[in-house]
C-alpha cells in the first residue's frame, strides 16, 4: 500500500504537484535516514544528506520513470548524495565500526529526548545500533540490512539478538532512571 502511495506521490510530483514532496518525505524519511546513517557514520552529516536527497529528488523528478521502483530510485539518490558528501570531506565509506566512538555513545545525538534510543546509543556497538535502528525505525528486513551493511544474514540476526539482550539488560539496570525519563517524555 505504501509503495502504491509512494508511486502516486512520485507521479504527482512529476506532474508538477510540489506538495507531493511532503507525502514522499513522510513515507520514506525513516528509511532514508537509517540508510544513510551507517554510510556516513555521523548523525549531523546524515541530516544534511537526507535533506540533499529530497532536494535532488525534487530537482531530478523528470528523470524518474513511472512504473519503476520509486524507493529504489530514492535510495540510489541517497547513496550518491552520501558518497559525494564523503568525497567532499575526503572520506570513504567504511563498514569497519571498530573505532571512532563518540564519548556520548555511538553517535553524538545532540539534545534529543529519547530514553530508549539514548540508552541504545550508549550500550550498543555501532554495528548493533545501526542494525537495531534500521530494523525498528527504518522498517528494513534483516535480509535487506545484511545487503546494505555487507554482512552475512546470520551475522545480522545474531548481532540483532545480542543487541536486544544488551538493551534489555541496560533498561533493567537503569530501570528507575529509564522509567522516570520515559514518564517525563510522555507526560
Amino acid at each position, binding site marked *: 500500500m505504501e509503495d502504491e502511495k509512494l508511486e502516486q506521490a512520485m507521479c504527482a510530483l512529476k506532474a508538477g504537484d510540489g506538495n507531493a514532496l511532503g507525502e514522499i518525505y513522510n513515507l520514506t524519511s525513516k528509511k532514508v*535516514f537509517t540508510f544513510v546513517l551507517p554510510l556516513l557514520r555521523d548523525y549531523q552529516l546524515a541530516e544534511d544528506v537526507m535533506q540533499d536527497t529530497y532536494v535532488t529528488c525534487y530537482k531530478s523528478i523528470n528523470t524518474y520513470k513511472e512504473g519503476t521502483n520509486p524507493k529504489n530510485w530514492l535510495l540510489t539518490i541517497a547513496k550518491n548524495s552520501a558518497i559525494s558528501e564523503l568525497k567532499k570531506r575526503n572520506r570513504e565509506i567504511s563498514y569497519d565500526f571498530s573505532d571512532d566512538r563518540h564519548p556520548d555513545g555511538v553517535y553524538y545525538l545532540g539534545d534529543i529526548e529519547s530514553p530508549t534510543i539514548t540508552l541504545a546509543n550508549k550500550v550498543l556497538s555501532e554495528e548493533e545500533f545501526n542494525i537495531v535502528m534500521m530494523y525498528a525505525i527504518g522498517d528494513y528486513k534483516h535480509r535487506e540490512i545484511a545487503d546494505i551493511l555487507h554482512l552475512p544474514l546470520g551475522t545480522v540476526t545474531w548481532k540483532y539478538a545480542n543487541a536486544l539482550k544488551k538493551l534489555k539488560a541496560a533498561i533493567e539496570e537503569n530501570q528507575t532512571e529509564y522509567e522516570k525519563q520515559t514518564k517525563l517524555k510522555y507526560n
Partner: protein
Amino acid sequence: MKSKQSLNTTDEELSSLEEVTEQEEKKILSSLRSEAYQFVPDKLLSILKECGICTEISPADEKLVLDSFKLDEASFQKDALLEIKKETGTYVPELDKETQKTQKRIRKEGRRIVPDVERAVMAESGIKRRNRKPLFFGIGGGVLGLAAAATAVVLVINFANNASSTTGTASYISFTVTPASYSASKNVASYYSITDENSAPINRNTPTWNFLSDKDNIVSKSHFRTGNYSASLITESITDDVAAPSLVKSLLKSCYSAGYLETRSASQYNNVNIQVFTTDPNYKSNYYESYFNSVDEALKETLVYANFAITVTDMSSEYSGLSTDMVGKINNLYFNFDEKVNIDTLKQLSEPIIDSLNELLANYNRAKLTPRAEHALKDALRMSLEAYLNKVEIPYTEEEAAALKESIIAKAGSLPWVNEGNLEKVSASLENDAYYMIGDKIAGFDDDGVFELFADYRNYVIAKNTVNEETYLSLLGDLNELAKSAREMTGIFADGYNNEKPDQGPESHIGQRGDGPKEEGWGHGGIHEGEMPPDGPYGDDSGHPDGEPPSSKPSDSPEPK
C-alpha cells in the same frame, strides 16, 4: 544514566545475559519506534523551502481547514452507539474479530499479489552483499538435455551389482491419472492457487505408480512402486507378476472406484499419462496398441472419458551396462525429482546414495502429506543433490547458524504452515535440522519474512551436510526417520497455506464425481484423443481426424473446449 554494559562484551558475558522473549522484543521495538520522530530529524520544512515550494497558507484556506476540523470533531468523541450496545449487551465482539480476520486475510493475500518491492530495491540499487554466495547450480533439464551433456562428459559407471545386466530389455513405466477437475483448473489457475471456496472443490490428487517391466513387458511384484500418497491409498502392491498394459487397466479401474476419474461434466476430460523409458528399440511398435486398448476398455467399462497420452523414450545408450535394478532405481529418482535432475547426473551417484534416496522417497510417498508438501520435500532433496555434486560453500559459522535457528524457532508462529493447533509440535520439530528440508516453492503467506530465514537455514543445513558421502547419507538417514513418522504427523509438515489437507482417501472422492455420469447423453466412455501408433489401430482412413476410436466418442456428447 549509568551503564555497565561493555561494548566489547565477551561471548561469556553475552551468554550470561537473559534471553529476550518475543513480548520483550516487541516492547523494546515499540519504544524505539515511538521515539523515531526524535531520532529522525524533521527536515521537511527546510526541504520545501530549499525547493521553493510555498508552505504558507492563505486566510481563506485556513478557514476552510478549520471548518473541516469542526466537522471531524465527532470522530474524536466516543462512539455512542457502541457504548450503548456494550451496556445493553447487544455488542458482539466476535464480529470485530471476524472483521480483523478478514482484514488480515486480505492483507496477507495482498502480499502475494503485490510484488516484493523492497527486495527489488536492494537488488537494483547496486548495493551488493559482500559475503553472499550462490549456493546451488542447476543440474536439471530433461532427458534430452542430459543426453547432450553426456557427449561431453564420459561417465564411469562402476556399480557393484552389475551381474544381471539387462541392456536392451528393461522398461521403466510411469503411470499417472489426473482427475478432470484438476486438469481443467490448470487452464485457469496454477498449482499454487487458492481454491475458490464458492466453487466445487478441485481434486488435486494425482495417483502415480512407477514400475519396471522385463523384455516381455511383464511387471514383477518386486518392481512395482507407488509414486505418491494418493497412489498408496489405492494400491500399494501387486500380488502377481502381470503384463504392463493389464496392470494399467486394473489400476485405472481402481482409480475410477476411488473417485480419481471424474464423470462430473462431459466437457471436462480426465487425463491418463504413461511415460516409458526403455532399452527396447521396438517397445512402441510392440506395445502401444495393447496400452491403448487397455486404457480404452477400462474407460468404456466405467463410462469415463479421458485424454490419453503415451510417450516412449529409447534409453538404450543411457542404460548401457546398468543392471535392471539400477535402471529402476535411477528412473524412480528421475520421476520423483519431477524430471528436473537428468539421468546422467543420477548415474554419477554412488549406490548407497541411490538406495538411500529411493528408500526415503518410498517412505515419503507413503506418508500422509499434501501434494504441495511432497513437492516441497522433493524440491529440497533436489537442491541437496545439486549441492552434493557441486560442493557448495557453507554460508554461516556454527555460531551464526545457531543464532539464525534460534530466531526462526522464536518466530515459528509466523511460518506459513503453522497454526495454533500445530505450533507446539512444529516448534519442537524445528530443533531437528532434517525438518528444514523444504523447498522454496512452499512459501505462502510469510508476514514476518520467517520463511526467508528458514530457507537460509535450510541452505546452511544442505551445504553443511553435503561435504562428503558420509555426511550426506547421515542427512538422508535423519530425513528418513522423519519420513517414517510423517504418517502420524498430519499438519506438521509444510503445506504452504496451513489450510490444505492431505488426500483424504477414496471415500472422500466417491459420491462426488467418480460414481457414474450425471449428464444425459453422456455416451459410452473411452479415450477422447491421444497419440496414435504408427498407422494407428484404426488406420489413416478411419475418418476420425483426431484419432478417436469410432466407438469411443458418443455421438451426442459435447465437443471438448
